[in-house]
């Protein structure tokens, strides 16, 4: 399965609303109110943490990089951020 084929389910734990997101550009289907909340995230670049390592000194570090929409890893990172900010449960579906 490619990253584009992966489907992600988001659930509002308090209200029980659900939505599913997949594809490129990503589509959201499900409870309309929840989809409306998700849509602004679906064209937003997202910052993620990544490693930095100075080979000379061995100093390890954490660096922020921005994933642009459509780049590898962007959709799950974008949905994780949406889930965190909107207080949703995120699960990867089939």
């Amino acid at each position: 399965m490619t990253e584009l084929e992966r489907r992600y389910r988001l659930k509002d734990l308090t209200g029980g609303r659900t939505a599913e997101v997949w594809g490129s550009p990503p589509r959201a289907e499900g409870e309309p109110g929840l989809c409306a909340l998700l849509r602004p995230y679906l064209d937003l670049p997202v910052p993620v943490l990544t490693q930095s390592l100075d080979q000379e000194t061995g100093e390890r570090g954490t660096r922020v990089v921005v994933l642009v929409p459509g780049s590898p890893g962007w959709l799950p990172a974008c949905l994780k951020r949406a889930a965190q900010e909107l207080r949703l449960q995120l699960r990867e579906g089939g």
Partner: protein
Amino acid sequence: MQDAVPLSPYRSDRQYARLETYRRLGLPDTTWAAEQFNVRVHVSSAGPMGFEPRTAEIWETVDRLPLQVKDVLRGVIDELRLDHDGSFPIGTLGTWRDGVMRINRDWSLIPALRESRWHKDLGYDLLRATLVHESGHALIEDPRGGVPLRDFVALIAASGWLPHPLDDPVPYGATGRQVSTLSSYYLSRLRRMDPSWDGELPLGSPGMPSALQLDRDLMYAVGKSTLARTADRGSLCLQGPEQLLGRLRTENPRRLREKLAERGLSLELVDAALRRRRALAPYAEESIAETPAEIFRYLHVPFSRGERSHQSVEEGERVLLEPWRTAERTLGARRAALAPERPWEAIQLVRRGIGRELGR
């Protein structure tokens, strides 16, 4: 019978005084950090102007860290440096090496954090995640009570790191079904490669090879022709599950199926093994050394209940949290200390009636 979980050496019954307590007394934030975490503190004054508010926010973030992370800061870190942006590789929030943690004093000026549409707490969240992640490195590699190599390798196995099935088919059979058997297998291969790897000792212990060598011995990709030509001892060639899936997808399915069959494997078996365990985040797939630190970060800054079912999280709870939790239960819960360390300030605090108010 399972052995009793050892107590974390970093948990003591000493309390923490809040940053606010020191600020009310007019004491500098650096005094709070030095006294509360038993570290040398250095704040750079080089670089762009107006750094005071940003450094103040870093101390506030430290003040709100979970207790275990504070215990790691106090027990493992010798020096805390808030250095200017120019002293870091581009976009770096913080680093750790040999007991010194460096945080980018100008963290909020990093271009990647300045997109106006992002949530106002995003920069703070990432700074906090960085502090926890770097503390995770410090905990794991500390020879005084860090994580034994055996448990480190268990975290790697639980995070889905696997060799290419044509290079080593063993993890795709019965050995790979349980984290415990898979990690024992990885450890035995490591020890065959270099007998100085000792499963009972943490990385950083005298006599143990370095963390960089562990990365190399576990994940360095070395071709068979190179191995044949040189004295290179090779590596386990482990890859993160997503990386390996991506690589296998590019191979010719028919040829792959035939070669797997020669080794007693099928595509279905390989697929099942790759999907059995997943990395928590792309960060945890970048290098072996990042994986345990990222699990530690996740345990303290989770984002979704669904991810709790990850085997790496379960293994992380056992390896990284349980010794500390056992100590916490044994020694009893802590409350915030009502006063700074130094007696004179403590007396002033009580006279001004601040201690009672802050103790709630």
